[in-house]
C-alpha cells in the first residue's frame, strides 16, 4: 500500500510537469537523502526521455538504497548513451566491485580484446561522424587534385588510404550496430537467483546460482523465462522478473 502511494504520487506530478522540473525535483530528493522518492521521479522521466546524466543519478539513488542490481542496470544504460562519461564509468566500476559473483571471461587473442575495448568506448554516432570526416578529407583531396595542387602519385596514395579507412570504419560500424541492436543483455536484480537447466521451476534442475548485479546476455525468451549466458559461457534459464534488460 505504501509502495502504491509512492508510485502514484510522482505519476500525477509527471503528467503536468516538464522533464526539467521533474529532474530538479528528483535531484532535490536525492540531496535530501530521500532516495526512494528520487528513484520514482527519475524512473518516471526515463519512461519518456533519456540522458546519460539521468541514468547516472538514477544509478546513484539505487546504490544509496542498496539495490546494486538496479544501480548497475542504470549505469549500463547511461554507458550505452555515453561510453566515455567519466562519472558513470567510475561509479559503475565502484559498484561492480561490490557484487558477489566474480566471472572471469575466457582469454581472447589480445588484438580482439583490444578491439573490443575500443569498440566499447565508441558510439554509433562517433563512427558515423568519423566516416563523414574521412569523406570530407577525400573531398578536399579531390578538389586539390582538380586544381593541380597535388601530384597524381600523392593523390592516389592518399585516396587508397582513405578508402581503406572508410571501408574498415564501415565494417566496425556494422559490428557495433549488431552489438547494440541484436544483442540483448540484462542485469540480475534479485539478491540471489537460481539458474535452471530448463524453463521449469523444479527443485532438481538448478544449475548454478548468480547474485545481484551480475551482467548476463539473453539469448532467447520463453513465457516468463530468459535463456541466459554468462561471460564465461555458462548457460541456463532464469525467471524474467529477476532480470532487468538493458
Amino acid at each position: 500500500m505504501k509502495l502504491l502511494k509512492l508510485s502514484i504520487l510522482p505519476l500525477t506530478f509527471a503528467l503536468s510537469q516538464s522533464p526539467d522540473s521533474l529532474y530538479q525535483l528528483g535531484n532535490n530528493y536525492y540531496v535530501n537523502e530521500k532516495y526512494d522518492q528520487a528513484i520514482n521521479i527519475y524512473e518516471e522521466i526515463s519512461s519518456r526521455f533519456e540522458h546519460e546524466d539521468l541514468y547516472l543519478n538514477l544509478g546513484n539513488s539505487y546504490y544509496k538504497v542498496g539495490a546494486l542490481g538496479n544501480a548497475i542496470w542504470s549505469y549500463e544504460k547511461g554507458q550505452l548513451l555515453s561510453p566515455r562519461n567519466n562519472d558513470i564509468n567510475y561509479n559503475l566500476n565502484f559498484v561492480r566491485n561490490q557484487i558477489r559473483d566474480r566471472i572471469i571471461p575466457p582469454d581472447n587473442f589480445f588484438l580482439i580484446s583490444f578491439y573490443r575495448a575500443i569498440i566499447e568506448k565508441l558510439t554509433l554516432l562517433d563512427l558515423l561522424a568519423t566516416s563523414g570526416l574521412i569523406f570530407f578529407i577525400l573531398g578536399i583531396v579531390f578538389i586539390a587534385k582538380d586544381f593541380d595542387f597535388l601530384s597524381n602519385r600523392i593523390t592516389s596514395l592518399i585516396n587508397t588510404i582513405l578508402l581503406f579507412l572508410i571501408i574498415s570504419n564501415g565494417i566496425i560500424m556494422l559490428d557495433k550496430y549488431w552489438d547494440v541492436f541484436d544483442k540483448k543483455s540484462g542485469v540480475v536484480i534479485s539478491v540471489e537467483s537460481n539458474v535452471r537447466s530448463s524453463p521449469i521451476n523444479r527443485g532438481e534442475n538448478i544449475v548454478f546460482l548468480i547474485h545481484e548485479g551480475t551482467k548476463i546476455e539473453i539469448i532467447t525468451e520463453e513465457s516468463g523465462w530468459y535463456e541466459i549466458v554468462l561471460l564465461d559461457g555458462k548457460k541456463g534459464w532464469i525467471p524474467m522478473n529477476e532480470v532487468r534488460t538493458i
Partner: protein
Amino acid sequence: MYKLIFILIFSSILFAQPTVSATVDINRISQSETIGFKILATNVDATPNVDVSPIKKNFKIVSGPAQQTNIQWINGAMTSSRSLSWTLLPKRAGKLNIPSLSVKMGKNTFMTKPIGITVTKGAGRGDMANLFIEVIPDKRKIYLGEQLTVTYRLYTKLNLSIEDIEYPKSVGFWNEDLRGSQTPRFKDTQMNGVSYKVATLYKAAMFPTQTGKMMIAPMTAICNVEKSSRRRPRGFADPFFNSMFRESQRQFIQSDSLNIDVIPYPNTPPNDFTGAVGQFSIDSWVDTNNVKVNEAVTLHVKISGTGNIYNFNINPINFPQNMEVFPPTSTIKRDEFRDEITGELNFEYILIPRMEGQFRISPITLTFFDTSSDRFKTIRSKTTDIIVTPGSASESIVSNFSRENVTILGEDIRFINTKNPKWYKRGNQTIPIWVWGVYFFSFSMFIFPSVYHRVKHQRISTVDIREANNALRLSLKMLKQENNDPFSFTASVIYQYFKSKLFLSSINLDPMTLDSQLKHKIDPELISEVISLVKLCDSGRYGPKAEQSMNSLQFDASELLKEVDKAL
C-alpha cells in the same frame, strides 16, 4: 546342618516381603525450620534408588541423602532395613505436599505415600522476630546501567555463628561486591522498639544489563544458633562450663526476593553512546609533546567518575595518518571505600609517528547518561598536539623531499549531475544535424569541380545568348518608334534581330544570305514573307507602292518578327 541353617535364613529373607515407607519427623513447621525426611526400606539387600526431583518444587534440599543400614536378628529371623534421609527447607508457606516418590530396588519399583506438611508463615519478621535477613535496595526503579545498591542485613536476638552464605543470584545484572568478604560484625540496634543485634551480611552494587521487570533471587544463610541449654547446671553455675555444654542448632534463613523495575532511557541515545551511565569526566594527555620520528609517545585517556565503569568502552579515536597505533591497554582503579562504584578507567595508547610534522589528536568524546539530570551528556577532552621532529639523518632526507599522496579516507560513488540535460526523446534518438552537414558538405565537394568547370566554360557565350534572348523585345521596342525613314530603319532593325538571334558575325546582310541562313530553321512560307518584306524595304522607298505601305510597314515588320521568333 549348615545347609539347613543357610536355607532357613535365606528362606526367611526370601519370604519376607520388601516394604518401603516414607516418614517425616515433623509436619507442622514454620517457614525457616527444616524437616527431616526419611525413606525406609525393609527386607532389601540393595540400596534403594530414589528420584527426588518432585520434591524440589516446594522444598529446598539442604542436605542429604544420608544412608543408614540396620540388620536385626530376632528369634533367628533377620530383618534388615536401609534408610535414606534428607533435610528439607520449605520454599514457601502454606499446605505443602511431599509428593509420592518412586523408589527403585533392583527390578522392583515402589511408590511412597504422599505426606502433607503445613508450613506456617512464621518466618515473617514480625512473628518470628528472632532471626531474619532484611534486604534493602536503594531504589526500586532504575535506568539501564544505573547502579543499584542492595544491602542484606541479618537481624538476630540469639547468639549465632554463620556457617555458610549463599549469595543471591541475579540474571541480567552485573554484580560488584561492596566490602562483602569480611566476617560480619554484630552491632546493637533497635527495630520497632525491640533490640536486635544486626550485621551486614552482604552488600552489592548491581548494574542492570537489560530492561524489564527483573528479579533478584533471595539470599540464604545457614547459621548455627545457640540454644539455651535444657539441662540445668548440676551443682555449680559456671559460665565457662556452661558454654562447653551449650547446644547449637542449624537454622536456615532466607531473605525475600527483590523485584526491580529496569526502565529504558527517556530519550533515544545518541549514536556514540556506548553504555556509560553515571557521572564522568574525561581527560587525555601525552607524556611528551615533542618526539622524534619513529619514537614512541604514550597517549593517556582517563575517564573518572561514578557509574558503571566496568560496562562500557570509549569510542574509537581518530588518530592522524602516518602514526602507528598499538592496541590500548586499559586499567580500572576502583575506590574501595565508597558504596557507589567510583573509579578511574585508564587507557594507554602507544603511538609511533612515522612522519615529521605537527599532528593533532582530535578531542576524545564520551557520551553518558547523567543519572542526576536524566539526560545524555557528551564530554570531550582537550585536543592534543604532537610535534614530531626529524629523527636520524637518513630518514629525514626521505621525508623532507617526499610529497604526500592524497590520502584516501573512504570511497564512495561520485555525486549526481544536477544541471538540466538536453533530453533525448525515448526511442527516437536522431542523428544530429552536424553529422548530416559533414556528409552533405563532403559530397558537395565532389560535385564542386565539375560544376565549376561548366560554369567557367559557359561564361564566354553568355553575352550572345543574352542578346539573342533580348533580340525580339529590343526589335519590337524600336519598331514602335516614329522615324523619318521607315524603310531603311525597319530593314536595319530586322537585320539586327537576325544577327543577334542567329549568332551572325556581321550586321551587313542581304536577302540572299538571310534566306540561306533561315533555310531549314523555319518553314519556307515564312521565309518568303521575310524576304519579301526585306526586299520591299530595300527597294520600296523608290517603288510605286512605297506611299501606301509606308504607314503599315513598321507594324507589319513587328508582327512578322513575332511569328519568326515563335518559329525559331
